[in-house]
């Protein structure tokens, strides 16, 4: 083992929460780049500053992305992380693994990389943390042999991810895992060969609880909903209430659209389906008694992103309801229209929502062939500065 001291990082091996420092040390016991990583991090802790340089472009044959180049700014001091690139490996839908696959992955990474991982990156990829330029190609080739392909990076369709959905959740309105697996295979070229103004992310949550944080973290969020009434089993409702569950304060009063009616005498819960905004609260609170409706599909939300450049955005409604059955033809058509329009008009490093704001939502809708709907706005505009097309007014003179 290395004899360099790490007193600051050693502090972070104390305490109850599992320690990343311990993990780096475990890898460092057999890998020199992990040992240098630990030493460089210790000097960042001493000096309050990072020690990574702007990355050069590195990659593997046939792909334009999936690998992020990283170089230490003190290669003399930390020679084994002179090059310390990450490989983004596309995770299986829902983050399910067999131990056999995980162990195979670990064996390959022990051979070519630092033996360190992020399980998982924010977008969803399994991140292999740190290898040299020379090792990239053989590592990726061996990963391919065990069935792991790369994920996305750069101006590409990024790796898709989703909530656990139908695999294990009674609230799933759509099959989130099947959808992202299908789209991932369909859009392999867009994932591997960046051809767009900037990144484009798709995430799927199978209900409005949005466990994949799709509306905050993806340009196109696919969120399962239903169109008919929630199903109420009043036997089970009574059982919960008789058991002391505070239905008034936890359910009735919390319904955002006052869609629920409670008959105190009969102990009967009813819903006015037109008023329900499918927020999930009553279902979350009483999972045995209340369930999602039968007419299931998804809402498409466009535009979620982090602050850079024009401010953070939450996805807003683009399609209030769409049925989603394989092969998802209608969905793919909408995705193609959106990304084509954006590729045509977007500036370098302009996210799709920034482009929509710049060009106007109405123009965007026309370009992708969607009708304006009241669901798309909180409320209509308050200013009179309206654009009219020449065709919409009577010709004069």
């Amino acid at each position, binding site marked *: 083992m290395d004899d360099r001291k790490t007193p600051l990082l050693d502090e972070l091996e104390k305490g109850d929460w599992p320690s990343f420092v311990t993990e780096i040390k475990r890898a460092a016991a057999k890998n020199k780049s992990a040992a240098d990583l630990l030493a460089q991090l210790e000097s960042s802790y001493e000096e309050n500053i990072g020690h990574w340089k702007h990355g050069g472009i590195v990659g593997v044959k046939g792909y334009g992305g999936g690998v992020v180049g990283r170089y230490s700014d003190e290669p003399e001091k930390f020679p084994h992380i002179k090059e310390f690139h990450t490989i983004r490996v596309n995770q299986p839908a829902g983050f399910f693994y067999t131990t056999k696959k995980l162990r195979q992955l670990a064996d390959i990474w022990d051979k070519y990389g630092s033996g360190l991982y992020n399980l998982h990156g924010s977008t969803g990829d399994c991140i292999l*943390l740190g290898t040299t330029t020379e090792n990239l190609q053989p590592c990726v080739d061996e990963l391919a042999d065990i069935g792991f392909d790369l994920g996305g990076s750069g101006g590409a369709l990024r790796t898709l991810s989703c909530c656990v959905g139908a695999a294990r959740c009674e609230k799933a309105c759509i099959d989130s895992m099947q959808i992202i697996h299908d789209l991932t295979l369909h859009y392999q070229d867009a994932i591997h060969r960046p051809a767009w103004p900037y990144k484009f992310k798709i995430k799927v949550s199978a209900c409005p609880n949005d466990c994949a944080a799709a509306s905050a973290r993806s340009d196109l969020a696919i969120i399962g909903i239903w169109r008919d009434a929630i199903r109420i089993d009043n036997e089970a409702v009574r059982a919960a209430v008789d058991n002391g569950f505070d239905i008034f304060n936890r359910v009735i009063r919390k319904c955002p659209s006052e869609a629920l009616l409670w008959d105190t005498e009969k102990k009967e819960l009813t819903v006015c389906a037109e008023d329900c905004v499918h927020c999930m609260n009553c279902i979350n609170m009483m999972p045995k008694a209340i369930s999602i409706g039968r007419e299931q599909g998804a809402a498409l939300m466009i535009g979620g992103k982090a602050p850079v450049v024009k401010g953070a955005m939450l996805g807003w409604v683009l399609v209030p309801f769409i049925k989603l059955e394989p092969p998802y033809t209608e969905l793919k058509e909408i995705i193609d229209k959106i990304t084509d329009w954006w590729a045509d008009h977007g500036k370098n490093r302009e996210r799709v929502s920034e482009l929509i704001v710049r060009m106007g939502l109405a123009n965007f809708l026309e370009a992708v062939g969607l009708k304006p709907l009241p669901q798309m706005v909180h409320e209509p505009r308050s200013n009179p500065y309206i654009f009219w097309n020449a065709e919409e007014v009577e010709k004069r003179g």
Partner: protein
Amino acid sequence: MARTDFGPPDYREMVPPIIKENYGDWKYHTVPRPGVLRHVSNSGAVLHSVRVASPRLVSSEWIHDICDIAEKYCDGYLRFTTRNNVEFLVADETKLEPLLAELDEKDYLIGGVGLSISNVVHTQGWIHCKSAVTDASGITKSIMDEMTGYFTGKQKVPARLRIAVACCVNMCGACHCSDIAIVGIHRTVPRINDEMASRICEIPTTVASCPTGAIRPNPKLKSVEINPEKCMMCGNCTVVCPAIKIMDPVNDGVSIWVGGKVSNARTAPMFSRLAIPFIPNEPPRWSTVTAAVKNLVEVWAANARDGERMGEWIGRIGWERFFKLADLPFTDKHIDDFTHAKTTFRSTTQFKF
């Protein structure tokens, strides 16, 4: 020739048989104890998911450890959650208690389900990112050492609370929509190496990268110049042009944001809002940050009603009372001056004293 464009392994080969058999046919779930989910299907099948904390940055040894456990109790199947916890999927109910006992014995933390503070979604920090203003892993570890009781269910919270850490304003992860977010920020104007910029900088891209239009070309030097009065130190220009540097170990640090949420339950998704504009970096323990987060959690937990998330609680009591209860100063930094500032201004005489 290497095989390309084949995508990830098929999830159908990664899920345990009980999930294959009951796929899309689950009836309800309960939480029999903190960290454990009991799923019951329409056919009567029962699956237990046992959730365990992970540091996210892990080694091959750690992977083999959890694989050993999954092979012993779960026929070799496991999964990860969207907040980077591990879940052991137990199809054989008789193996549940022995699994929990072994996890306890090996000091794994079981929790992060339902009414709890689950894992911190965080980023690369000084471990791997060139733009990192702070270290995400160190802050996460320090905060969660304080929050372990809330993770395991020993300490109660009125609703779930999501914490996220991002090491710069790129806010990778869901910082902009978290109950509590810690975000690395700069406070000094970037410095330009003109000679280097003239060689390697794409001037129009660099100019366009600035959210406030503070950058303009400097044709004399074939470089760019920054108007310090317009610059709010977001660092975006340094991402596109390596000749511009912004790191400043003395003035860099973190900000704390509150009240965001993603779920649609009860209230619409909300953005996180600024609570504390600046705290210096204090590795290895970031004690001021940790104390501030603890204070925010405790004030909320003591005052919120059952089921009320941070942002919903603040929505009910108003920001004016939030700053009072949390004992935080309200400053000029809290007043928005970015593009859509006016949507945040209060356009009504409704307010609380």
